[in-house]
């Protein structure tokens, strides 16, 4: 494959990133998706929209988030100098709020009063419920019944914030099924409802719109590292569910050829077990939820059930831009098992006093593998996408109920 001049120009006007992306949705939704695209294009160049975003990002979300030198983790691993982008310090405890703020301000511009969302770990649901509370909007969150059970603290938070959480009992009862149900709601209530998608997936313009709202992560990282070290990073690493925290960090650096980039997929019980959520490592291109992308499925095109210890990564697909970045070889996608993530969860807690979300504990798991192979002047930035309070029950279970 020929290497493009830039990795940052996508998508094309029809929403394609190479072979991936597109707008595979029912006709009922198509007019609204076109209106959303037009509204977003207008907002993007409107200084008033940017000013509003910047204000709330600073005063409500608490940005910029710190770029923190993980001194003891670096010492322990004995290789690359490791920096953590502290997205877990944002209001609501993860990177998800960056995107939700953008979409909620857009929904207000479009005059939509009812917001729906899907959620896996509950972090996107909490962020959406939070901003709906802040702006007085109705909020309905679809969440797989399995996830309602394993992420109880977040269900409580959403209820407290005034959102209606609807447990989804169809299919595998996880994130994929929550997204199906959200799409069914949207088709039904298309006249007054805005669908706030939580990751860089779905029909165009969602993948690029969500990426744009998250790209503040990479922009801040560049400036902060320049200040701390006088230069840019040598490598970036982030966990990939749909891929929003990863795209947020990566996008800024895609055209810096000296920067190595790693996305970490959830390998569950291991790729060979068949019980995993690593759609690039273990999947093939297919069409689901509005876009073409790598998917886990059988030979008949039936979508497989993913498995991950982390609810936020437990999805049989990945955002289309990641699929493209894999195809052209710009980003390397590595699988990380449940066990490796649990090791990362514990190590970061003990050495740095930071309990990570199980999602980004997968990135920690691969930092443990990669950092020792790098020289000491190698600058590695990991996206610490969320905090682990929501995961303490799951982790206690796996470690033998030592809570």
């Amino acid at each position, binding site marked *: 494959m020929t290497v493009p001049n830039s990795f940052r120009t996508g998508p094309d006007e029809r929403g394609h990133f190479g072979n991936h992306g597109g707008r595979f949705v029912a006709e*009922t*939704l198509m007019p609204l998706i076109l209106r959303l695209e037009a509204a977003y294009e207008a907002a993007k160049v409107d200084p008033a929209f940017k000013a509003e975003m910047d204000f709330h990002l600073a005063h409500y979300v608490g940005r910029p988030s710190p770029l923190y030198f993980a001194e003891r983790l670096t010492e322990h691993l004995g290789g690359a100098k490791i920096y953590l982008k502290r997205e877990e310090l944002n209001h609501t405890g993860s990177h998800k709020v960056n995107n939700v703020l953008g979409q909620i301000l857009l929904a207000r511009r479009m005059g939509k009063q009812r917001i729906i969302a899907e959620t896996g770990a509950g972090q996107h649901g909490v962020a959406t419920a939070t901003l709906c509370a802040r702006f007085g909007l109705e909020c309905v969150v679809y969440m797989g019944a399995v996830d309602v059970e394993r992420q109880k603290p977040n269900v409580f938070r959403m209820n407290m914030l005034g959102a209606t959480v609807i447990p989804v009992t169809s*299919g595998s009862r996880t994130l994929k099924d929550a997204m199906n149900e959200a799409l*069914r709601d949207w088709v039904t209530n298309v006249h007054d409802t805005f669908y706030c998608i939580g990751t860089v997936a779905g029909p165009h313009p969602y993948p690029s719109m969500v990426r744009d709202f998250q790209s503040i992560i990479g922009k801040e990282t560049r400036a902060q590292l320049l200040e701390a070290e006088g230069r840019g990073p040598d490598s970036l690493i982030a966990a990939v569910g749909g891929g929003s925290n990863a795209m947020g960090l990566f996008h800024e650096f895609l055209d810096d050829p000296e920067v190595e980039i790693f996305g970490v997929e959830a390998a569950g019980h291991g790729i060979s077990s068949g019980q995993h959520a690593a759609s690039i490592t273990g999947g093939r291109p297919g*069409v689901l*939820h509005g876009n073409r992308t790598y998917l886990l499925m059988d030979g008949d095109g039936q979508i497989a059930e993913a498995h991950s210890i982390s609810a936020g990564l437990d999805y049989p697909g990945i955002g289309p831009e990641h699929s493209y970045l894999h195809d052209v070889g710009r980003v390397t996608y590595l699988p990380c098992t449940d066990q490796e993530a649990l090791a990362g969860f514990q190590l970061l807690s003990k050495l740095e006093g930071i309990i990570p979300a199980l999602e980004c504990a997968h990135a920690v798991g691969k930092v443990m593998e990669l950092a020792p192979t790098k020289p000491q002047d190698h600058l590695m930035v990991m996206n610490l996408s969320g905090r682990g309070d929501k995961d303490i029950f799951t982790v206690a279970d796996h470690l033998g109920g030592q809570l």
Partner: protein
Amino acid sequence: MTTRISARFTDLAAAGRPGLVTFITAGDPDFATSLALLKALPAAGADVIELGVPFTDPMADGPAIQAAGLRALKAGQTLAKTLDLVRAFRDGDGVTPIVLMGYFNPIYVYGVPRFLADAKAAGVDGLIVVDLPPEEDDELCLPALAAGLDFIRLATPTTDDGRLPAVLAQTAGFVYYVSITGITGSATPDADLVSAAVARIKRHTDLPVAVGFGVRTPEQAAAIAKGADGVVVGSALVEAVRASLDENGAATSRTVADVETLVRQLADAVRGVRRGAA
């Protein structure tokens, strides 16, 4: 080229009556029963058959058709077996049009050129693929038309006059008007609104317009059929399949008979409607 679909709608127009379009899910509850159901439909009064292609994630379908698809998948149904089903049906019926209805992924994974060749050879007449709007015509619509299969588009209450020409441009066979904003088997459509919408579509096209989503009873079917060239009933039929199954989800002696009875009642109601010259 006259396809079975256009021939059928021409005959219906000549007879001055609207058509009954029946939807069942391929392989529900198992291959053999599904074939028996298919074979029973024309004699019971179905003018056109829509055959649902099971998919794990049917985003536009309500609980009844979701469950039917899962029953079929559990019984081992695949897209290849769905084509086998059509082939077996065609053995005894060369005239009743068959339209496959489903989602793009199984077709994409099967491989579009191979699928179109196999579907045509099996005796499929048209395709309805819910998640392929005109914006994605290159994927399947244009190759299907080139292969001699009708690509039947969905028009919906949100498809305004500005968008209708694009939706109708590559549509063949008939236009499927989705009578509600929603999923299959949910709200009941308002017959007056539907007939106004059909009239609006007909200002843009000479193709027949069939109306579906949410039509359950013979009375509703007749009311909708007054303002359309065809009326589609799906969820009510797959519900009848479900209600006939034993406690293990297996077909019983009632399965085919119950569906036949309901189709006959629907057909009687629809055939009672007279239409002026189309």
